[in-house]
């Protein structure tokens, strides 16, 4: 069974290569290094001795800092991924793309209300010049059908485009390969905010709660709680009623209605 040494966590984030891991050649910006197989590109680059300033962020596949292009020796196909999420292979030739110039016009979200699709056309005319090559979709490390959300934007289905682009980490790989010079990810950011503000229905219950807060409704309740001895507070805490897991939002009501 698990012995103590196994429950002791290893230092930091250094990878532990499995026993007998094979050393394989990779090419970091053309220079050859031997690294243990199964590492991610990011950990392999660090294993080789590089220390990141750019090109490294969350190390968990969500921030888009470590966009990477790679090929394998002898294969013409260009591939793309996130360095922190892509596993290396023998003969992998790697370069990261820590920054890529994008087009992002300013706008005032509060002053758009009217024709949302028209505003997209005004700010991002290039979106409507998509030639449908699909390179963006093939390049996306998040498996987003980028070309399809661009098509939805062209058609005026902004909600569809927002939902389809939602997993975007804004790494910029799509824009770097686009022959029509579109910055897909910035246009999608704009569309998602339009949808969040103008197309998704507002939460009425939230608005009501905000006005209750602003009217000072909870101030006396807080005063009471803050003035309590820890022992009494503990009793209140233990007595709390727990909303059932499978209840629909806003339906269940507690016995204690005095503090709502």
């Amino acid at each position, binding site marked *: 069974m698990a012995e103590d040494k196994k429950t002791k966590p290893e230092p930091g*984030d250094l990878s532990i290569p499995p026993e007998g891991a094979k050393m394989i050649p990779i090419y970091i910006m053309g220079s050859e290094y031997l690294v243990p197989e199964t590492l991610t590109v990011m950990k392999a680059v660090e294993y080789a001795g590089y220390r990141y300033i750019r090109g490294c962020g969350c190390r*968990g596949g969500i921030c888009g800092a470590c966009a990477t292009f790679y090929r394998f020796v002898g294969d013409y196909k260009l591939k793309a991924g996130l360095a922190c999420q892509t596993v290396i292979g023998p003969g992998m030739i790697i370069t990261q793309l820590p920054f890529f110039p994008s087009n992002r016009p300013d706008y005032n979200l509060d002053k758009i209300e009217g024709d949302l699709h028209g505003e997209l056309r005004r700010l991002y005319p290039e979106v409507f010049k998509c030639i449908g090559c699909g390179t963006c979709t093939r390049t996306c490390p998040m498996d987003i059908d980028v070309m399809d959300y661009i098509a939805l934007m062209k058609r005026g289905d902004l909600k569809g485009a927002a939902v389809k682009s939602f997993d975007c980490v804004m790494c910029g790989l799509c824009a770097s390969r686009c022959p029509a010079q579109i910055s897909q990810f910035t246009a999608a950011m704009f569309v998602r905010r339009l949808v969040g503000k103008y197309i998704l229905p507002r939460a009425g219950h939230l608005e009501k709660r905000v006005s209750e807060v602003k009217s000072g409704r909870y101030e006396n309740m807080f005063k009471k709680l803050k003035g309590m001895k820890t022992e009494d507070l503990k009793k209140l805490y233990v007595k709390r009623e727990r909303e059932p*897991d499978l209840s629909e939002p806003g339906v269940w009501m507690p016995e204690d209605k005095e503090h709502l």
Partner: protein
Amino acid sequence: MSGYTPELKELIKKVEATRGKRVEKAKRGEHFPALTMDERERWLKKYHPDYKSEGRRKVSVGPNKGEVLPEEVSVLLESKSMLNPGNIDLGKVDFSTDVLIIGGGGAGTAAALTAEMEGQSVIVSTKLRHGDSNTVMAEGGIQCASQEGDSPYFHYLDVIGGGHFTNDPSLVSALANDAPVVISWLEELGVMFDKLPDGRMKVRHGGGTSRKRMHSAGDMTGAEIMRVLKDEVRNRSEKIKVLEFSPAVELLTDKTGKVSGAVLHNLETKEYYIVKAKATIIATGGFGRLHIQGFPTTNHYGATADGIVMAYRAGASLVDMGSTQYHPTGAVYPEQNVGLLITEKVRGLGAHILNIEGEEFCFPLEPRDVESSCIIRECGEAGKGITTPTGRVGTWLDSPMIDILHGNGTVRKELPAKYIQFKRYNIDISREPMLVYPTLHYQNGGLKIDGEARTDVEGLFASGEVSGGVHGRNRLMGNSLLDVLVFGKRAGKSASDYVKSLSHETVPTLDHIKRFHREIEKAGIENPVTGPMLLPDYTPEHVRKRQWG
């Protein structure tokens, strides 16, 4: 094809064998009994890493002198400056601003937008890109008592009970009270929250919540919030200047000790910049990358406690700095995903935590420190953990229950990022469980602040993970995203009010560094390290050995 080894696949059969009965129980609303308050305390003391004596020692200088803190923290608090105060001409000011914000994550960005609305000029100094922060990694959601059966009163109770009643009550009430205002602000800015067709927010439970109040945007709630806030800052670039890859390395103080700006360091050109500011907000986040007690971390690359180090030298005191949050469910398999956060939402959606026999051994939604203690106990003393091929140990997180409980496709829809991150390694988490173990997740303590985000040094404000007291010694899920926004906004407002109240300009000095260096010397600290750390160093031994000279 599965990404699991044949040995692990055999063990998964035990999980599958108990699943039917467990799902039936869950459908009836029955769950594994939660620990009593007494049991919680006993288990924490026995199994939580905060209560180990090894790896901790007294810090010997500064406002918290004599307090026992993790070794990694004490070393940095006793570090010397990168700057030699005698060599710097502070008369040559590179930037002047009303409000300087150090840190470009959720708290700093919320502060920037608020200060700008208050009519202030703003500079945001950030070590990596704008938005690179733990905020983007917050997955499961943000708490807010928005539903009719809930209220800020119950939110307060959950927060302070979850923190074992060690929280600062005035910070807890600010957090619970402002939550609806903050969520409504985000809605106004175009954040795409998960909603029902009529606009009602979808909500879920988190560990330690009495009401379903976790609001989400897919399983990338923090990333969605951060990208929207960052986008809005770009619309306001006339008043908000963002300096990327230029972290602050030292605060500036005037002759009375008031903070009056900072020295920034361009990581690429190695130049230093002097920024004179009427008010300064520290929002540099937490200390995950210090790898307290050797734990892997879920934190982003820049989480190295820089703000703590700088503010401490300027005289700001710390609260609960010895308290670290280990998230119960960090991935331990495959090796490529080690440290990766598995959001609490997985358990919020009903997934059980199981041992090697496929048996439940704890209520899956205990407060985080309690849940972690349960897992550490099961893998250690109870000896019922699962060992991975690289020698790590963990328990099962039975994600396939989710589709059975809520319908096919729920995992893919509600946990898209997690689904992709495992699919890359041929593990379909809607059909196979994940292997998890606690991972270093959050700095519970930090700079002491009041309800208006003021530190105890004049002119210096702090918000977000860098500050302490809000969550006491344990934070509940969904309250950190809320914290960065509530106190980010409060800091922005408070700093703006302070700027408006100032009658004359101050002259920046580095006198506090001279004093601090003398204190280090007097304390007899030999060869202090240089701080702040700025970036972690993962150079492996075989390379280090060859870096001669």
